């Protein structure tokens, strides 16, 4: 079986099918309410935009949007989805940790636990630095993370999803485990694609996601030059680690990354 870090092409190709029940509209509405309260927000950059399900809704609401994703399959799907908004939508294929667009935005979003894939403090601060560099002063950062309190209260979860499409079947089995010393919830995902009676693809993915408590987030954000404004359970919650366990967090860019932050902070143990 092929083993993949995250988002194999099998996963990416079927991404929207796996997540057909994810309530993007509820999430986008919740984010829009934050935009209205803390804005004005005209332009939105989505780091780790995936197939642009959120961006599509922001574009439809009139925002100028740019998405960044490192998966070519996802980028192709995202471009297709945003075709109707060509005048004010763009998708860039790049790793969010390396991306450097010559522009700043009113808001940066990182949804579907994008930030938590950075499990190390160094990686987290690097991702926050990229968001910081692409925001105007006072601009808004909006992201969702695994809520440590919920993760630790409920313990690991697993499950099976089967999607049937004509003669094609997609099977997904997930198991979860906690790596307490790393503050990581690890999702293992096995995927099988059956075309009639033929096994067309099979892959195993490991998704390590860091979870957070509120005072830690506040501290990380302040080190990265943001002020935590608020947080709430992610709207449209459904069962499963990356859904009902998620919390939406929003913060304002205050200043350059804290000058004089000990460089040791950025060195991984």
């Amino acid at each position, binding site marked *: 079986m092929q083993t993949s870090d995250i988002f194999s092409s099998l996963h990416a190709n079927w991404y929207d099918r796996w997540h057909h029940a994810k309530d993007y509209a509820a999430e986008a509405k919740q984010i829009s309410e934050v935009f209205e309260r803390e804005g004005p927000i005209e332009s939105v950059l989505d780091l780790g935009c995936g197939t642009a399900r959120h961006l599509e809704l922001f574009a439809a609401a009139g925002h100028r949007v740019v998405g960044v994703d490192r998966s070519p399959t996802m980028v192709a799907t995202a471009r297709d989805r945003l075709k109707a908004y060509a005048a004010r939508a763009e998708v860039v294929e790049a790793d969010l940790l390396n991306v450097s667009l010559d522009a700043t935005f009113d808001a940066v979003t990182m949804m579907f636990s994008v930030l938590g894939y950075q499990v190390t*403090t160094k990686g987290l601060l690097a991702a926050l630095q990229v968001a910081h560099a692409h925001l105007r002063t006072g601009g808004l950062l909006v992201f969702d993370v695994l809520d*440590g*309190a919920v993760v*630790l*209260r409920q*313990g690991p979860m697993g499950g099976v999803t089967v999607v049937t499409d004509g003669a094609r079947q997609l099977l997904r089995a997930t198991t979860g485990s906690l790596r*307490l*010393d*790393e*503050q990581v919830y690890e999702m293992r995902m096995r995927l099988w694609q059956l075309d009639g009676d033929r096994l067309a693809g099979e892959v195993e993915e490991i998704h390590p996601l*860091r979870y*957070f*408590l*509120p*005072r*830690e987030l*506040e*501290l*990380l954000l*302040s*080190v990265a030059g943001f002020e935590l404004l608020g947080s709430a359970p992610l709207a449209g919650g459904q069962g499963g680690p990356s859904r009902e366990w998620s919390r939406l967090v929003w913060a304002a860019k205050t200043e350059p990354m804290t000058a004089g*932050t*000990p460089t*040791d*902070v950025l060195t991984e*143990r």
Partner: protein
Amino acid sequence: MSGGPPGTFQSHHPGWSNRFQPDKSYPAEVDQIREILVREGPVDEILDLACGSGHHLELLAAAGHLVTGADRSAELVAEARRRLRPYGSRHRVLHSDLLATRLDRPVDVVIMMFALLSHQVSNEDALATLRAAQSQLRTGGLVIFDVLDATTTISGPANGSGMAVVAGSGQQLLCAHAQSRRDESQTLELSLRSWLIEDDRLIDQGEETQRMRFYLERELDLLLRLSGFHFLGSAPLAGEDSGDVAGRGVGASFRLVWAQKT
């Protein structure tokens, strides 16, 4: 309360209930600390910030260390001095707030027990406390402290209450506790009431509310980095046979954490 020397029950002093923990096993905690000292040493002088009545220092002094204590409570300082008197010039106890403590020479180790860091709820207070320890240490010196552990706290029940009774020598100390976990503020709220009864007379009573922050592992790592330390390790605090917060029936436990000044 056979083990309670006079003056232990200082109900008028804020923090008394945190210092009076009938089930606390000082020898087990100090053994655990000494294992770290042996591994990471050599260690001569140890400073205990918020030393209370000096239980930890007494055992460390008996093990041959030069010890310094600091506490903001005059009563507890007096008690610690009495306890440490046998160690003569090998000890000193200062009456000072931990943030204001200034020693004439850097020490090898700072300990901060009784979950001192968990009583620092905001990031600002937690960082100030760690920096106070850092400022009194030599480069390469160690800080050792216990905190309320987030993982076990959150996995336990959100609410609970109970009564601990310590009896002996014609006295009874009744300690009632109620606790509730506040996930949104990352704290455990403890409300404590105590009654000291001698024969058939109530001789003292007290009431106190405490907020204690619980910490995750990487979160501690970040706080330590920001205050000039390199995180070395952590382990469940020794001597907690019940796994409770100070034997009060709270479904949570403490972790001992150690780090090195960079």
